[in-house]
């Protein structure tokens, strides 16, 4: 187990400004303490919801020429672009954008143990056709043992909010809660062979709401293309304190 983590650390080192001591400390922490003060945040969500755009927006302040479906995770440790001007010591954030394509889902499982928080990106423009798929993915993440035990905070981000026909975050929240409620019923007895739903959500007998989750779940809006990412940055800063 420990060797694997070593290898993962080694491969993941996209060297920007990770000091040796940070490295050494985090490695030690991994072996000695299970709960290290990690600064890793994951960007997850369905394919096409805007994760890669958000990643580059947070890192460079613009999505450059555009994006296509990701085949591999985007990994970077950096200080948020909007904070570059600020004075004072800023702790760099380790952000990982996990591809949303269903064939690449197992990658998320590898990265969850190291994360301090998860941002689940939802496409508010094209929401209803993908509502079920998004709810299933969200349900799978919320029921993972690691998330439940560590109470990893989660942000449900309604992306593409700049468009006129985008749904509001309240609407999306309610829809997701309804879908997850239905999923609870159909999934409670089954355990699929590859993704084990270790826990069930919510209180039996009551409708599901995000407030029933043991970890903190909040909802926010953003727009990756125009750069309206203040709520995201707030979430990140709360988790990764300098």
């Amino acid at each position: 187990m420990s060797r694997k983590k070593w290898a993962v650390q080694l491969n993941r080192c996209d060297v920007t400004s990770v000091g040796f001591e940070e490295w050494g400390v985090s490695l030690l922490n991994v072996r000695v303490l299970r709960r290290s003060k990690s600064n890793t945040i994951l960007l997850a969500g369905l394919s096409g919801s805007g994760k890669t755009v958000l990643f580059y927006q947070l890192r460079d302040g613009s999505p450059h020429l555009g994006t296509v479906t990701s085949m591999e995770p985007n990994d970077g440790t950096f200080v948020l672009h909007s904070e570059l001007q600020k004075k004072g010591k800023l702790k760099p954030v380790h952000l990982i954008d996990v591809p949303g394509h269903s064939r690449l889902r197992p990658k998320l499982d590898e990265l969850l143990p190291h994360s301090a928080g998860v941002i689940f990106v939802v496409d508010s423009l094209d929401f209803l056709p993908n509502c079920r798929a998004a709810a299933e993915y969200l349900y799978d993440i919320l029921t993972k043992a690691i998330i439940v035990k560590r109470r990893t905070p989660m942000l449900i981000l309604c992306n593409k909010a700049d468009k006129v026909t985008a749904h509001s975050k309240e609407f999306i929240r309610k829809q997701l809660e309804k879908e997850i409620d239905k999923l609870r019923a159909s999934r409670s007895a089954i355990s699929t062979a590859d993704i084990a739903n270790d826990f069930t959500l919510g209180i039996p007998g009551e409708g599901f709401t995000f407030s029933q989750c043991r970890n903190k779940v909040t909802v926010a809006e953003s727009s990756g293309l125009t750069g309206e990412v203040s709520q995201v940055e707030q979430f990140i800063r709360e988790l990764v304190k300098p």
Partner: protein
Amino acid sequence: MLEQLLIFTRGGLILWELGNALKGSPIDALIRSCLLEERSADAAFHYDAPAGCAAYTLKWAFDNDLGLVFVAVYQRILHLLYVDDLLAAVRREFSRVYEPKRTSYDDFDETFRQLQKEAEARAEEIRKFKQAGRAPAAPGKKQVPGAASRGSGKQRSSGGGGSGKDESDGDPGKGRRSENGSSKGHENEIKPNSRAQNVVVHGKENGAPQVEAFDVSKLQKLRSKGAKKTDTGGGGCKAAKAEPKKIAKKNRVWDDSPSESRLDFTDPVDDRGEGPEIVVADQGESMMDKEEIVSSDSEGEEDEEVRNEKPDTKKKGWFSSMLQSISGNALLEKSDLRPALKALKDRLMTKNVAEEIAEKLCESVATSLEGKKLGSFTRVSSTVQTAMEEALLRILTPKRSIDILRDVHAAKEQGRPYIVVFVGVNGVGKSTNLAKVAYWLLQHKINVMLAACDTFRSGAVEQLRTHARRLQIPIFEKGYEKDPAIVAKEAIQEAKRNNSDVVLVDTAGRMQDNEPLMRALSKLINLNNPDLVLFVGEALVGNDAVDQLTKFNQKLADLSMVPNARLIDGILLTKFDTIDDKVVGAALSMVYVSGAPVMFVGCGQSYTDLKKLNIKSIVKTLLK
């Protein structure tokens, strides 16, 4: 000319692009249905924009070391020879300019235009050279020209790129095209041989894609087969190939009627009511709901250690390769990969994976590893092993949800029954597994109804009737010698009336080459529009799995009236208990060929023997 050329990272960021805006989203389609499906060794990918406004061909190249992908998009009617050449040149040049953190490469425009001119000039030269040597044209000789050769023997003054000429060519081609039933493609009397090898499939995501982009090397392969000029085109050749394999089925009408009443013993039992057959209901929990004893991480680590400690069998250049692997600076070449890949391919084949699938997989892994830097302290074989493992995991992971219960609930809300059709060849276990699925659904409090649309095989209806009685569920049957499509339609109406949530439709087994039966099946599916078309395949099958699935998909696509044909949505793997745990390759072949996930695995003959596929353990067994 080229519509667009894109350079993007594997993580999804576009680094550089040049060209017109494209209609639809061909790049995303390429990634989803080709590169992520481990078909990256194919020559080209075809994309039809929705609403039929454009048809593109896409070609790509990888730079595995830097993690970049280069894609060229052009109109399908054009046949640009220089694209491969251009992609290779662009890759070379761009790797020089590339820096990991840099995101804008505007200065590359100039370099690109230069490269494009050069590539076009080179292609022009080759064409002129070939044309000049074409005068003494003889079959089998090396004089058949490149892109400009539409009909052999037709002299063509080719000016400019091969692009403009295709219009005049399209027409003689079109006639033959409709014959084939295969869409797109430029016709060439010599081509039928190669086309006969390519499986023609409509759906972009199923089966092997058509290799239509003209490649000079392909032509040379063709020539070695001898220029057999058949005028009937690809279709005739394919039919000729199929014919010897399967003799046309004889007339199926048996004079059944007198014997049926004589042999039909079940009726008296029915009249008596339940009789000795008391409810089966509880044989216990179906294995679907039991926890799989998933191998824990510790086991995984053991395997890793064993692998790493395996003695290095390569004798040649052992010391230098060890040095290189320690220093970690070696660039992987195709020649380095070949022995490791060959070993892997053989191993896969001993596990009962179809030969062509193993071949394609190895090619795809090779494409994704070529040019990559070896990590330090790793050997070539272990890199290849990890890459192959990832690839297998990717293929077997379903790309859409296989949660049937959720789908059933969704259909229930919409007020209609959820329809599942079981198709497959003879004797794979459709009826048995249908009963198992019914049992499992019943355990989850869902109302199931059976529809006996196998009106051919003697005893099929009685078999289902017995199952229905044991499970205490309604069955809709109309006896024998009726049109299965109509029976299914009426069954669904009956289900709506008595509020059944799910209708399981049993069909007769049929060989994939049997044209009239496949047509009947297609009619059944199109008439009733089921929610799930489940292909039942047995785990014992070897190379035939590929053939079965491609032909089933192809016939379903060809014979449907609507443009978006219903294809196979899921696979049910049966007789898993009969194979030694080591030979599980059939699952991989089937999934690769059809793109459909394995939804159930049948592992025995009693009601509870139904389980889900454990992907990690299969991958582990395949690569052991």
